[in-house]
C-alpha cells in the first residue's frame, strides 16, 4: 500500500499527512460512532419533544457532546500517529526526525539516535498535555464527575 500512496501523492509532507490520516482515522471514526451510540436514548427523545429536528439534534445535542470525546480519541491514537509518521519518513522522505534516525541507523550511531528518540518522546508528551489542557479548558462540563 505504501508504494501506491507515494506514487499518488509524492514524497513531500502530503504523503506523511495522508499516511497518518489513513492509519488513524478509522480508529477515531469507530470510537466516535460508538460514543454517539452510547448517548442515552432519553436525551434524544427529550430533544425531540422540545421540537428538535434531525439537523438540530446533530448540531445542538450530539456534536457538542462529541468534541471532548474526539480529543480523548486523538490522545489515544497519538502513539500510532507517531509510528505512522516515522514509518513514512523512514521510507520516503528527505527530512524529519524519523528520516534522520534511519539515516544513521546503519552506523549504529546511538549518540545521534538516542537524543532523537528523546525529542520524539518530549514532543509526543507535550502534544498529549496540550490536548488534555484544551479539553479541560474548552469542555469543562465533561470533567465534572457525574
Amino acid at each position, binding site marked *: 500500500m505504501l508504494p501506491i500512496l507515494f506514487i499518488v501523492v509524492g514524497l513531500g509532507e502530503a504523503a506523511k499527512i495522508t499516511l497518518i490520516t489513513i492509519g488513524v482515522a478509522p480508529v477515531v471514526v469507530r470510537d466516535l460512532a460508538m460514543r454517539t451510540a452510547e448517548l442515552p436514548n432519553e*436525551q434524544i427523545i427529550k430533544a425531540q*419533544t422540545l421540537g428538535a429536528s434531525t*439537523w438540530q439534534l446533530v448540531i445542538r445535542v450530539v456534536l457538542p457532546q462529541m468534541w471532548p470525546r474526539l480529543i480523548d480519541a486523538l490522545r489515544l491514537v497519538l502513539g500510532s500517529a507517531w509510528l505512522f509518521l516515522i514509518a513514512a519518513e523512514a521510507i520516503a522522505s528527505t527530512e524529519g526526525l524519523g528520516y534522520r534516525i534511519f539515516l544513521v541507523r546503519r552506523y549504529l550511531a546511538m549518540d545521534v539516535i538516542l537524543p532523537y528518540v528523546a525529542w520524539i518522546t518530549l514532543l509526543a508528551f507535550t502534544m498529549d498535555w496540550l490536548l488534555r489542557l484544551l479539553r479541560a479548558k474548552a469542555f469543562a462540563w465533561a470533567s465534572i464527575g457525574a
Partner: protein
Amino acid sequence: MTQVTIKHLWKEFGSQVVLENVNLHVDDHEFVTIVGASGCGKTTFLKMLLGIEHPSRGSFLIDGEPLPSEPGPDRGIVFQRYSLFPHLTVMNNLLLGLELHESRILGRLFGARHRRAVARARQLLEAVGLQASADKYPAQLSGGMQQRLSIAQSVICEPKILLLDEPFGALDPGITSDMHTLILKLWNMNKMTIFMVTHDLQEGFALGTRVLVFDKVRVDSQAPEAFGATITFNIPLKGHRSAA
C-alpha cells in the same frame, strides 16, 4: 382543549400481549396518574402516548387526530433520569426548547430575541427555585434539582400533554412532597394535561384527578404472555382542583 380518546387499543410484541382492549377518555386539563404492578404495560402505554411505540390495533386519538408517529413538541416528557443535556448549563438547558423553536437552522438565538428568551427562562427558573444555579451544569445539581429542571425544560415549550415516567422514583421521600407542590403549581399555571406513571399508590391518589389502575384480568398460568393488561379501575377524583 386537549382530549385523549382511546378505543379498543391492543399492543403486542410478537406473541406477547402487553395491553388488551384499553378504552379511555381523558378531558382537557386532567391530571391522570397511572399505577399498577411492574410489567403491566404502564410504561408501554406512556411510550405510545409519547410516540416511540405504536398501537398494534385500535385507535389512539388526541383531539380526534391519530397520534403522530414520532415524539413532538406538543407532548413533553420527564424521565426518571438522563433527560438533561450534560453539556449545557441550567440556563441553556432551559433555553434549548425556545431556541429550537425559534431558530430552525442554527438552533441558537442572538440579540434581542435571546434576551427575551432569557427573561422568560429566568421567570420559570424562579418558579422552580433554581435561579441561584443558573450557571451550573446538570452534574453539579442534586437529584431533586435535576428533576425540577427537567420538568421546567418541558414546560417552557408549553406542551398540550406532559408525560411523567416515575419522575420522583429516584428521589428522597422528603424532597418528593416539594416536587408534588411544584408539579401541581405548574399544572395549574399551564393548563396542560398530565399523564404520570408511578409505583406509589399514595402519590397517585394525592396528585391525580383521575387514577388508572393497569392489571391483567385474565391469567393463563401455562402461557403467561397470552393475555395482556388493561385498565381495571378508572377512578375519577373530585374536588381536587380547587384544593390544588
